[in-house]
């Protein structure tokens, strides 16, 4: 036994629920990667525009032909509102995690999962608001890819919450799982936020630009 100068960390907590945790930073890096992916996809969308006289380009491959194939607004807008509104129960779950209120978290997660499932179902309907199929032209390919990639995120987020909910129902909530729920909540806010921008680009920009 030798005496040495030390810093004793045994009293420090073993997990935190906020941005100080490693998993929060891992999630942030994932969001950077995915944001970059969407940014490039949006760049490709606008790049393709210079190859067309009419924007959105006409739909000609299947009857009926449509000259100005602007995507319809109703279903997408409902879906956008649904997604943005789902952030409210999400924020509620977030705060309940901080207070370790297991009942609130459980209920809130059920609401969020239902919202997520609804948004996914509406997304499938939303594909029909696009008046063209993905193989109509380059514009169509870009739009379908944007919607499709975002749909993948919707799936991932909703399934993650389903998994976390299962844990909560079977076991007790602890700091680590509260942290995981909060980190997934950040992911959910991003899913909603990025969709706001993508919605504007896909559905609004052809009408105004």
């Amino acid at each position, binding site marked *: *036994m*030798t*005496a*040495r*100068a*030390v*810093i*004793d*960390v*045994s*009293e*420090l*907590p*073993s*997990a*935190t629920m906020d941005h*100080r*945790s*490693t998993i929060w*930073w*891992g999630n942030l*890096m*994932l969001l*950077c*990667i*995915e944001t*970059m*992916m969407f940014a*490039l*996809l949006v760049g*490709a969308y606008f*790049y*393709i525009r210079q*190859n*067309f006289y009419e924007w959105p*380009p006409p739909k000609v491959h299947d009857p009926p032909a449509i000259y100005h194939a602007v995507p319809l607004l109703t279903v997408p807008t409902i879906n956008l509102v649904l997604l943005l509104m789902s952030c409210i129960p999400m924020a509620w779950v977030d705060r309940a995690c901080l207070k370790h209120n297991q009942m609130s978290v459980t209920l809130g997660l059920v609401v969020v999962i239902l919202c997520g499932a609804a948004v996914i179902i509406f997304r499938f309907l939303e594909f029909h608001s696009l008046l063209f199929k*993905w*193989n*109509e*032209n*380059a*514009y*169509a*390919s*870009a739009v*379908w*890819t944007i919607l499709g990639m975002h749909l993948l995120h919707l799936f991932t987020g909703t*399934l993650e919450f389903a*998994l976390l909910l299962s*844990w909560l129902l079977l076991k007790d909530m*602890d700091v*680590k*799982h509260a942290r*995981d729920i909060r980190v997934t909540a950040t992911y959910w806010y991003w899913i909603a936020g990025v969709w706001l921008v993508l919605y504007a680009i896909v559905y609004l920009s052809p009408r105004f630009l």
Partner: protein
Amino acid sequence: MSALVLEQKELNEPLERVALERVWKRPPGFIGWITTTHHKDIAIRYIVTAFIFFALAGILAFFMRLQLSFPENNILGPDRYNQFFTVHGMTMMFLFAVPVMEALGLYFVPLMIGTRNVAFPRMNAFGYYTYLAGGILLYVGLFLNIGPDTGWFSYVPLSGPQFSPGKRVDFWAQMITLTEIAALVGAVEIIVTVFKMRAPGMSLNRLPIFVWAQLITAFMIIFAMPAIMLGSGMLAMDRLTHVSTHFFNPAEGGDALLYQHIFWFFGHPEVYIIFIPATGFVSTIIPVFARRKIFGYTALVLSLISIGFIGFGLWVHHMFATPVPELGQSFFTAASMMIAIPSGIQIFCWIATLWGGKPQMQLPLLFVLGFIALFVLGGLTGVILASVSLDLQVHDTFFVVAHFHYVLIGGAVFPLFAAIYYWFPKWTGRLLDKSLGLWHFWLFFIGFNLTFFPMHQLGLKGMPRRIYTYAYDSGWANLNLLATTGAAIMGISIVLFLINVWRSRHSGVNAGPNPWHSPTLEWATESPPPDYNFVYLPTVQSREPLWDEVSPPVVCGLSNRKRESLITTLMEAAPDHRYELPEDSIWPVILALVVGGGISWAIFDPWAVPISALLTFIVLCFWFWRGNEPASLTHHVQSSEDLQLLKSEANKI
């Protein structure tokens, strides 16, 4: 968080060591090997695998050189040659250069910042197995004569559905997907580990330059890799029969140039992703062998950061021969020249460090000197290529081949060899043999110059790239034969190197923990380091911790009954909370099998995508489903009964 007080404490280091050995021990045999989550195991695996791919790509290159030695040669027909140069490029870029650079980071970053493992050890293992799957996929394709054959950048429309029917280009696309997943995984590890797990006192301005280089590279990977994933994904979708998107089909508004923009938006940062870690090696090695601290730490860090940023603004210089607007081209000329400034700053700082020091001509330094001589030459031909007018003549010729081999071999492989000679004693406890090393260096240096210097000339004499042969009346035969001779010499030097590594592992001169008397933290522990890296995590008070007069305090209080490390704050690295690291796990390799298998199968059947997505979800459920310990469990070995138990177990180790 209670205020942490610096105190004097009685520490029982042998007991702590025994307890940590037990907690960090791997299960025996093959299970232990396949389920490991130790960052050093995984990093060594990356390095060994990357060098196997390096050798394979070198063999491909040697066949290419044989084919080009004589006009109208018939060792390789056009189909075989096209596959060889494509797979050579893909192997070197995706299976060797980026993985080996990341691997050195995955090995040394946790050690240099004084922690026990990377932030997400299981994900790290998954990254390796995914990378391995990508490499196997590519070579299975090559050996079955369905390897990709449209160049490592696989331009459309040649690689599109019309002109490349069959599965070859799909092997390209899917291999890229797998290796980019691995690269992104490694990048996330580096960033989160560096930001959150540094030793107390290691504020950002005390970070070793090696770690800065790895951090900046990791950020570049985060922002550049999505482009190639998108590009290869779009190409795959264009090619799939029932999908048939039109991203690159000009008949439906798609654009062949869109592909080039997306590809090179990734492709240019890619070369800096390979180069910047190499500068980290150089900035580590020069101070040790000049016996003084690095000159211009701040300038070096700022240079690396600016290369990281400017590197994203150069990509159109690969497209000067295409119909992009001329005013835009000038912007990219200016940016491509600007990046020479931070690179130059680094060179000047390195020379300034040597200037004031007392250089010891050991092999690491010799390779670093070779690097400077060759990289500066390559960088200057880069300035030539930055000029639009000059590029229009030498683009897509052997001049460019010469340029990028000078900057990639000179600028990355030479520092890599320097790093291996430098760190081999840390990995194995033994030094590499010096005279065999000198043979390696000189043969490699001479062979390299004989191979690639004449290619500048060949480009100026009109020889384009990617030609499987050339005419008798072209006048290119002599220089090509010279280049092949150089390639043979390079090959011999690599064989000598491999012999050196093989022999020195067991019979090299014994090195202690710090044979070069280096200042960074990896040398503060044994060679090779134990699985838990340090018995007590260090703290630091300067940039060169092991060159300080006084040893700073160490961290105590971390559990020795479970795998635990310390999380510190982002800027000042003050201790924040304790972090539990996972046990060894089978799930990373299973997930890699699902992802690798699914992505490979998707080449042949699109149903692979939803099926493997479902399987991925199931595996991730198992991965993340874990128990938690009741807070009341004491996490220290304290009682005498515990002590007795541990001592008896220690006697068995």
